[in-house]
């Protein structure tokens, strides 16, 4: 179980832990979609939580905003169980079908979480119509449009090598269609992504060629929300790519 959420008050931390506990067995069944896409299951959600925690060191979030972001991390992709296309809408359908989710997060938080989840896909073109502010624990404590934009970006940032199960790939790659193999290989090359707010860039470190289509897609995601980030004074103005040496210990040893 994830040991994060330390910035939340105990009562909200408990709620997030309950959501995580509730959803992770189901996330294990979000199919990898062999020979299609890399995982949208438990590991992906855990990675988003880690990205949020890294962002915490650089951007101040309210208790409410963190709570919504963490819950969204765990819930946003369960629609992939049905279909990857329009999975954001499918996720909402699933959540609405089972009242336990709303009861866990509370009826005040639930519509805000659904807004963030709906907006996380780039096919959602109404992100600029999301209210700027919302109230969860106290008056206007949630910059709803901002965290919707940030969550789309955070989701887009989970493109690193951690998306690739090495054993699975090793077994299946021989039979993978070339198009899918390119996808997996592209993930394998991306080492990590850093939000460098001091220099105003999202830094992508890649072992492979910086001309990586996954990074291109991340740029598209970023471009779809950058105006919202800038309007809110978030110092992330561009995506930078840097090629890093392959594992340095191979040369050292």
């Amino acid at each position, binding site marked *: *179980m*994830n*040991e994060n959420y330390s910035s939340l008050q105990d009562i909200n931390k408990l709620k997030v832990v309950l959501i995580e506990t509730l959803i992770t067995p189901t996330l294990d069944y979000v199919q990898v979609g062999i020979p299609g896409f890399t995982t949208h299951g*438990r*590991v992906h959600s*855990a*990675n988003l939580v*880690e990205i949020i925690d890294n962002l915490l060191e650089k951007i101040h979030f309210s208790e409410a905003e963190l709570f919504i972001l963490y819950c969204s991390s765990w819930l946003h992709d369960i629609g992939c169980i049905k279909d990857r296309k329009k999975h954001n809408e499918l996720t909402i359908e699933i959540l609405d079908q089972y009242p336990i989710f709303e009861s866990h997060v509370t009826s005040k938080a639930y519509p805000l979480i659904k807004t963030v989840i709906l907006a996380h896909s780039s096919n959602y073109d109404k992100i600029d119509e999301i209210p700027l502010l919302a109230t969860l624990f106290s008056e206007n404590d949630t910059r709803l449009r901002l965290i919707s934009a940030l969550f789309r970006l955070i989701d887009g940032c989970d493109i*690193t*090598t*951690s998306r*690739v*199960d*090495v*054993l699975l790939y090793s077994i299946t790659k021989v039979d993978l269609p070339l198009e899918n193999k390119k996808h997996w290989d592209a993930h394998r090359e991306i*080492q*990590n992504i*850093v939000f460098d707010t001091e220099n105003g860039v999202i830094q992508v*470190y890649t072992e492979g060629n910086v001309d990586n289509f996954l990074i291109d897609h991340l740029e598209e995601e970023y471009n779809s929300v950058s105006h919202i980030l800038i309007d809110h004074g978030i110092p992330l103005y561009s995506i930078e790519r*840097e090629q*890093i040496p392959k*594992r*340095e*210990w*191979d040369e*050292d*040893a």
Partner: protein
Amino acid sequence: MGEALSKEFIVASEIFHANKMNEKIWFSKLVDKLKPIMSKVTVSKSIDTLFDWNIVKGEYGETTPGHSGRLLKITNESKDRMTTVYEEYWAPYRDSKLGPKT
């Protein structure tokens, strides 16, 4: 019990230890810590295996001031497993193997 771990999991456990202590750890620092029990080549091969099996990941960042490298971390999906491995098979024996205050 202290002999139960493979060299790969000793390396992983030591990385886990550093992550747990919120200490940055990278290849040469890890080699230094494990010097009493393991050669540089062994550490290198072990890390390769751990990377291949997605137990360890590297995040490019600052190691010492002004220097960059791969900061080693246990992957999210391996954390639960490594917690057990570390607590039962490495933590109780670490000091006797590596010397205290490493």
